[in-house]
């Protein structure tokens, strides 16, 4: 049982799904409207079924995973391109596993929520929805899922890079072809920013290989051998920068974030969830896995700068979020702020901070996912994403408004909801080593309350606007989509232990590699003794 290649199979299932969808006959001149719709529905159903199979497989992995076991489980290593020293090597540690499970949970949710997005109904009123191939949209999503699982599962730096870059293409088409508003501009900006970062990383990847070669022994890209490489501090600094800039653009860290609000605003809500919820996590995941473990000296050297940027990002993005007029843009800025917190937790180099950051990655995926999707439901109903176009929705669509409130409160880390646990851990973990940074970061929570509650107040409360008076409440499909997310937000808020248990050993490993131990808080007794003994 344990020899079964769970990870590979889990990653391959969505790709098989994509191929299956591709076999559904496409649009043809002969087909009538009803036949076309039936075929589109078939494509969507195939996508949903395959994403559910993937989810089931990933849950099996989560159950089979032994937190105390070897570092990488479900591991497989095969030669891929021996001339380059490249392996197909996959395996998950606790951090990668929870992120994969988050991805596979989000996927069916996003598919359900974006059931009709490809038809272009979410565009602003007045803009004729262009006819798009529904089939292609779902193929893109399934291909993206394979790549997302691959990027978290790769244990070969080259393989990771391949997925890291290849992921851009489906997302690029999802934004550019199926998005709304300034989709072309946003798609190009997204792609070029990410490509630039990725290519800088490519230099570092190649250099890493060259440095890993010694004498007659050829270099390697395998992650574990690379962590034992004795690189000089100078080399580590440069290579760290090569990786870090790529991840900082991806994550995104202030001031590399400007593409995200554009991309998330132009994307359909479902695509935006994948973008912010999963793709961006690759950035923070990469920092934790690759930047810290491969280049510990570089990481220590740059930590002060990164902490400053992270805190600046938390506050800056939160303040900018308050001023946004567009719902999707606002949520995108809140994410930039949250990513600042995650990065803060990663680079605090304490176990609490990193466990909190990893947990935050998962919780942020669910909370922001729910927020984006519900915002999407609102936008579809009103044909506008402007906050000012709403008002009093609470009275006509109470379920929608209620769920919006819960996911919003998760966004501001209300105690009892999942994000609180992670945010709290991050702040504590940071405080034990960098008090000032933690204090400033805490201000972000206050700002979060402002932007979330103010948005809720403006859209949901007050007198019912004429345009929203006839707004229907959530349909069954929509409820099925966001229901599980809301449930997870609450469950993980009350009982996060299983997830933390999976994450803990991996974080411990990371900290051992960066040679960082948690600062021991001064014992009250010893403090007293010191005080009395000048």
């Amino acid at each position: 049982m344990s020899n079964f290649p769970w990870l590979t199979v889990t990653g391959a299932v969505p790709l098989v799904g994509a191929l299956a969808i591709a076999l559904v006959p496409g649009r043809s001149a002969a087909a009538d409207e009803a036949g076309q719709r039936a075929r589109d529905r078939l494509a969507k159903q195939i996508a949903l079924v395959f994403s559910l199979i993937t989810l089931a497989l990933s849950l099996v992995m989560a159950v089979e995973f032994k937190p105390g076991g070897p570092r990488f489980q479900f591991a497989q290593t095969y030669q891929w391109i021996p001339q380059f020293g490249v392996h197909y090597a996959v395996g998950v540690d606790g951090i990668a596993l929870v992120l994969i499970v988050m991805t596979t949970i989000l996927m069916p949710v996003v598919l359900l929520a974006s059931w009709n997005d490809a038809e272009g109904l979410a565009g602003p009123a007045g803009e004729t929805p262009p006819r798009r191939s529904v089939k292609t949209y779902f193929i893109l999503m399934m291909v993206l899922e394979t790549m997302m699982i691959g990027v978290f599962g790769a244990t070969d730096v080259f393989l990771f890079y391949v997925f890291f870059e290849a992921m851009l293409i489906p997302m690029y088409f999802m934004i550019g072809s199926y998005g709304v508003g300034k989709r072309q501009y946003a798609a190009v900006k997204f792609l070029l920013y990410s490509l630039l970062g990725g290519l800088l990383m490519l230099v570092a990847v190649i250099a890493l290989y060259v440095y890993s070669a010694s004498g007659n022994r050829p270099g390697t890209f395998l992650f574990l051998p690379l962590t034992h490489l004795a690189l000089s501090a100078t080399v580590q600094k440069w290579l760290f920068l090569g990786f870090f800039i790529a991840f900082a653009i991806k994550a995104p860290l202030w001031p590399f974030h400007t593409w995200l609000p554009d991309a998330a605003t132009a994307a359909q809500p479902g695509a935006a969830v994948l973008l912010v919820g999963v793709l961006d996590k690759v950035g923070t995941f990469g920092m934790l896995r690759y930047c810290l473990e491969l280049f510990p000296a570089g990481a220590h050297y740059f930590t002060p700068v990164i902490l400053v940027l992270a805190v600046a990002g938390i506050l800056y993005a939160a303040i900018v979020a308050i001023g946004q007029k567009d719902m999707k843009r606002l949520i995108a800025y809140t994410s930039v702020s949250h990513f600042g917190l995650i990065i803060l937790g990663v680079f605090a180099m304490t176990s609490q901070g990193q466990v909190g950051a990893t947990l935050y990655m998962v919780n942020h995926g669910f909370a922001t996912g729910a927020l984006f999707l519900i915002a999407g439901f609102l936008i579809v109903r009103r044909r506008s994403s402007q906050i000012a176009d709403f008002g009093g929705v609470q009275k006509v669509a109470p379920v929608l408004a209620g769920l919006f409130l819960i996911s919003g409160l998760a966004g501001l880390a209300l105690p009892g909801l999942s994000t609180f646990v992670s945010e709290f851990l991050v702040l504590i973990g940071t405080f034990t080593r960098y008090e000032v940074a933690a204090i400033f970061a805490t201000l972000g929570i206050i700002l979060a309350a402002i932007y979330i509650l103010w948005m809720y107040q403006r859209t949901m409360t007050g007198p019912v606007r004429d345009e929203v008076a006839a707004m229907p409440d959530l349909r069954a499909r929509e409820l099925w989509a966001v229901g599980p997310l809301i449930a997870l937000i609450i469950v993980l808020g009350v009982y996060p232990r299983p997830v933390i248990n999976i994450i803990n050993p991996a974080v411990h490993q990371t900290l051992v590699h960066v040679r960082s131990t948690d600062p021991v808080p001064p014992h009250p007794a010893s403090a007293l003794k010191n005080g009395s003994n000048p």
Partner: protein
Amino acid sequence: MTGSFAALAPVIPTPHIEYGQLSPMLLVFGAAIVGVLVEAFAPRSLRRSLHLALTLGSLAGAFVLTIVIATSSTLFAGGSAGHIAAMGAVAVDRPTLFIQGTILVLAFISVLLIAESSHDVSAFAAQAAAVPGSPEEREGLLAGISHTEVYPLTLFAIGGMLLFPASNDLLTMFVALEVLSLPLYLLSGLARRRRLLSQEAAMKYFLLGAFSSAFFLFGIAMLYGFSGSVKLGAIAAAASGNTASSVLLYAGIALIGVGLLFKIGAVPFQSWKPDVYQGSPTPVTALMASCTLVSAFGALLRVFYVAFGQLTWDWRPAMWAVAIVTMLGGAIIAITQTDVKRLLAYSSIAQAGYILTGVIAATTAGLSSSMFYLAAYGIATIGAFAIVTLIRDPGGEAGHLSSWAGLGKRSPLVAGTFAFFLIAFAGIPLTSGFSSKFAVFQAAAASGGLPLVIIGVISSAIIAFPYVRVIVLMFFSEPAPDGPIVVRPSAYTSLAVGVGVLATLVLGFIPEPLLRLAHDAAAQLFVR
């Protein structure tokens, strides 16, 4: 008495020719000459099919012969790097055979494009001699005359391309250079549409090409003055034992370098490339962008690895500079292009810069990665130009990018294929563009070229923008009402595109077999 007479008489030894080892080139040249006879004697109705059979048959035959030679046990017996045939004029070694094989495959696919002749798609003028816009031209068009001379001309050019990288002395190399260039000058002036542009391209190509040939020849003279020989091995020997002044040597390296870099289209010798690529009939452009590039790089590799192999430290700084300006220049100027063929031309310039980073490595890895890159890029670029021939408006090919708007909506397959090639050129993983770029960059970094690699990726990031812009145009823009039509490709063009897509995909996912082939071919470098 008789004995002294024999000693006085000028002895001309019978040249010893290894016909077997030279058979691929001999076959192609022979077929070209037969092609001339066909052109002269065969009835017009039969000419095209005869030419086609002859051309494709000889290319395929030459490819098979190349494989036979490469696998022959005697030639490479006992770890021999190869053999110098034809009285020291032609080298037969593994890198050369790899390059020749590549050229033959690429030439075969290019000829498929040249053969495309469903009446309004044929790329060639009916009568090159007719003045553009004259009654004669109209008559020729109406009579359905087609220029079948293109086939023997192409074969001559391909023969020259095969000899160019195989030449073991500089004079043979010069002859090969002229044999490959002269037919190309002619071919590039034969476009059926926009004939003035085509003739201008031919003129520019000819003048600048002649100029660069002069540089090359002057360089040969310098090196002969330095070493007393035109043989690459002798030059290397003279250079390594040299203690006297080496002005002649360095001047020779520089001038030879200029001649070769011109053919590659490296900055600052690139100015012909966009004009010629744009003006030439697109199938000829495909031939030039693939086969000529491979051949010229083959020659460059041989000259710099064999003749100047000991002087790496002397030529490397200059090559660094050329590679850097080529990568950056090609990428930056590509941004402003509005014509798809010019865009592909600048893309080709930038790609030449990436390959140069592999050449500069001057190691077996550098050689094998350059050869891999050439093969992968050549096939993809033919496919891309094949797509260009399909997008047409009443004036011929719709080259201006504005008319490509919304192509993805009207013919998703054609636009998707072109986008795929662009993604490959941009070096996105899981395409051959990535694996080849990775190969040369890895080789460059391993031999101290990390700064070059950094410039390389910056250039890649810059040139991604024009590629992405084309994709945006095709897929994210609404179609123009009077947009171009997409003609149904015949079997020839479909095959060229299909091979391009397949190779780009396969070399992206499993580059291992071809990499191994290139690696084995490069293992012993060139024969000296």
